[in-house]
């Protein structure tokens, strides 16, 4: 039953996302590839679309994947799944607010989960990078993608330079517009 699978997959993702929408990407990547719903490159397209459209990233990506996998009802299930844990947990926490924020076990758990989330996000970025530049399957590097390598170096360089010069980060939408434009030229 695809709808049930979508619902509980996104329910788990919602339940174990700490630190905002991007922290979801590692688990989404793991789940959609394990279930054979889509390829990494398709998922990357979805991420780009979710980032460029209004609304919270988490909702966008859940709706998108749900819709592609299971039509309109699939998207409803995925979106409900990702929202429901928040709804339940927040209502409970709102009732016991101060106890929650000062509880030593809660503090401890958050303390321990942060480095894990950081490691997950960093390694997702790096494995996505590997996949784009040196696709690796069945124990061997398949090819070296020079265009992708050039694009990532120039874009990365520009983003860092922009931050150093202007003392503020480049808007994510601008980063995507720029990368789309460069993609149009290079590929």
């Amino acid at each position: 039953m695809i709808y049930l699978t979508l619902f509980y997959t996104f329910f788990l993702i919602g339940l174990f996302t700490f630190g905002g929408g991007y922290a979801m990407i590692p688990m989404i990547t793991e789940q959609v590839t394990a279930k054979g719903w889509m390829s990494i490159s398709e998922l990357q397209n979805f991420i780009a679309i979710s980032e460029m459209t209004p609304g919270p990233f988490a909702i966008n990506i859940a709706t998108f994947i749900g819709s592609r996998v299971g039509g309109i009802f699939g998207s409803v299930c995925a979106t409900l799944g990702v929202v429901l844990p928040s709804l339940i947990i927040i209502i409970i926490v709102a009732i016991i607010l101060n106890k929650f924020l000062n509880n030593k076990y809660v503090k401890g758990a958050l303390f321990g989960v942060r480095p894990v989330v950081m490691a997950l996000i960093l390694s997702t970025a790096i494995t996505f990078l590997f996949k784009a530049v040196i696709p690796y399957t069945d124990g061997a590097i398949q090819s070296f993608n020079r265009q992708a390598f050039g694009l990532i170096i120039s874009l990365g360089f520009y983003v860092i330079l922009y931050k150093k010069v202007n003392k503020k980060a480049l808007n994510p939408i601008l980063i995507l517009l720029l990368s789309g434009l460069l993609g149009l030229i290079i590929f």
Partner: protein
Amino acid sequence: MKVGVFTFGGGYAMIPLIQKETVEKKHWITNEEIVDIIAVAESTPGPIAVNSATFIGYKVAGVLGSIFATLGLVIPSFLIIFVISLFYEQFMAIGFVKSIFKGLSIGVIILIANAFFKLKKTIKLNLSTTILFIVISTYLIINYFLEITIPFFTLLLILFGFVFGIVTETILKGKRK
């Protein structure tokens, strides 16, 4: 809630908007409460935008309020994305669109890396958590070449993080006292 419609790029972009709508215009909550809301939204699981909407909804009008606030946040995104997803296939069949998306997938990598650096700036790690961070990320990166897939490995790692944090923060600190 119209906040949902105007949020580009994730939860943190919403906070100033939420503040303007709910504190200044509607006087639902105070500025101090916003700080609480952010603290809770960050330290509970789930997307930050959804968490804050639910929390504010609850503060203003109880359980029903939280449900409506969340629905209000979700529905605009849901409709927009659903319509886009219907045209996705036709859209991706166009040659130049494919090139654009090849570029975009590189942009996405930069965004994810950006998210990491943002987190790194706000999160302070001590010795034990730094080691944990290095071990896990090294393993995950090497795993690209090992191609080992363990179902729900990410989830297991997060649970491990909880246990690790609780053990180091409560039990070990308790012993030192």
